[in-house]
């Protein structure tokens, strides 16, 4: 449903993405891992149309919504209003009437924790709650592909586990494809079937997550420096 071919993105004279190709099938969960500054966020921003590529193509059948790095909520607005605004981009071209499309209660089915805090200002929430609002806001756009940028950043493992469970459930029950962009490669490989490794704006490895996790090169760079089986050596 998403196919990216030879994508090049430049900031001024700096090249952030240099010939990146990847594809995602409907209903798939795909991991994109890489170190800080590899170009992961640039890639998501290009996919969701915030940035323009200088070369290459992005073909998308369906709707993409982004859970941006650092949550990026509207801190002065309530949780419910944050969610409602998630439907802004899909105002036109949909049959559902405006009001029901903007009704945040459909997100509460997937993320029930949100319904109890719907009246609170987003800026007053904990990091985990904010991340959940960010996911909920993206879901309001009825995406066929959800691009989640650094889900785990700055969150306690138990909170991350809850969020991960919600994503898996969403993927299983609604068939929403998920692109998980992570510095925490272990988490991404655990959740997804297939993955890509991005370094310095290029894809340097790809394949099933189980294989990537075993690959010595990836393990050395992202999984704490030790290759499985070498632990005892």
């Amino acid at each position, binding site marked *: 449903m998403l196919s990216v071919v030879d994508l090049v993105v430049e900031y001024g004279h700096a090249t952030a993405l240099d010939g990146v190709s990847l594809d995602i099938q409907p209903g798939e969960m795909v991991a994109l891992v890489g170190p800080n500054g590899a170009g992961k966020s640039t890639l998501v921003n290009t996919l969701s149309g915030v940035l323009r590529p200088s070369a290459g193509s992005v073909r998308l059948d369906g709707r993409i919504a*982004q859970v941006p790095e650092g949550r990026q909520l509207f801190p002065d*607005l309530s949780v419910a209003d944050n969610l409602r605004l998630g439907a*802004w981009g899909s105002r036109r071209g949909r049959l559902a009437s405006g009001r029901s499309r903007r009704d945040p209660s459909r997100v509460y089915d997937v993320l029930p924790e949100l319904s109890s805090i719907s009246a609170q200002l987003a800026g007053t929430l904990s990091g985990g709650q904010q991340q959940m609002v960010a996911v909920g806001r993206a879901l309001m756009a009825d995406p066929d592909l959800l691009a989640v940028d650094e889900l785990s950043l700055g969150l306690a493992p138990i909170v991350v586990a809850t969020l991960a469970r919600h994503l898996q459930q969403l993927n299983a029950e609604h068939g929403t494809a998920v692109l998980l962009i992570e510095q925490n490669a272990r988490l991404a490989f655990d959740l997804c079937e297939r993955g890509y490794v991005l370094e310095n704006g290029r894809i340097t490895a790809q394949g099933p997550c189980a294989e990537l996790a075993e690959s010595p090169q990836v393990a050395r760079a992202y999984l704490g420096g030790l290759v499985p089986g070498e632990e005892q050596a």
Partner: protein
Amino acid sequence: MGSFVSYLVSGLAFGCSFALLGSGFVAIHRVTRVVNFAQGTFAVVAGLAAGSLLGDGLPHGLAEVVAILVAGVVGLAIGVVAVGKRGTPTLASLVITLGLGILAYAVEIMIWGDQPSSYPMVRGSVHVAGATVQKQYFVVIGAAIVVFLALGLFFAKTYLGKALSACASNPYAARLVGIDPVRMGILAFALGGLLGGLAGVLVTPLQPVSFDSDVALATNGFAAAIFGGLNKPSAALVGGLVLGVVEAMVAGYVNASYQTEVALALMLAVMIWQARKRTSLTEEVA
């Protein structure tokens, strides 16, 4: 007592017009981070337009509404030039609005000449607590109350109002959910135009306007708006009322010619006091 009441009412009425202009500044600044120096222009255009439409025989009510809409269109046009080009720095946008304010001088003189003009809206006066007060003052106060309530509802309840608030709250996130900040910025300018236009239509019967009345109107409106750091319409209302009453009292009890100095000194004091509170980091954004 009688004179106190009449000073108070006139102060509140002028304060309401400052508040309307100030909320225009706020509406534009929240979304675009631009201070619109042409804010006084909206009031002048609407005041002059209403005068000439009434002179052409349009009935009251219709003439005023059309004049306010004209100011809204002027706001839209200024917004297109000032923030319509993506990546225009805010300081450049600010100087552009200054330039467009001057351009408006040329257009206003061509259409309406350079003489001050006024028109009656509601004639007569009423007796309140021993004072004779023009009815027009109450019209101004009443209209301002209605508009501020409507403005509050607009931002709190409507989807568009929330989208505008979202741009103010986090412009990057607004873009992510598909809100176009440039379009919203232009819309905010149109809203600022309507608010400024309303102020102009209401205040012209009390105080004739000419093409260059905009500087005084804009500085008073800005003074009202900075009470809330340019971000809260409700604070602009409070600021406008305080400013209007202080000016009226100074004019009534001290000397009418000190009115401007007092208002400007008050504005400087508030700004400097606010700057002391703020950390240098958030100022850099402005």
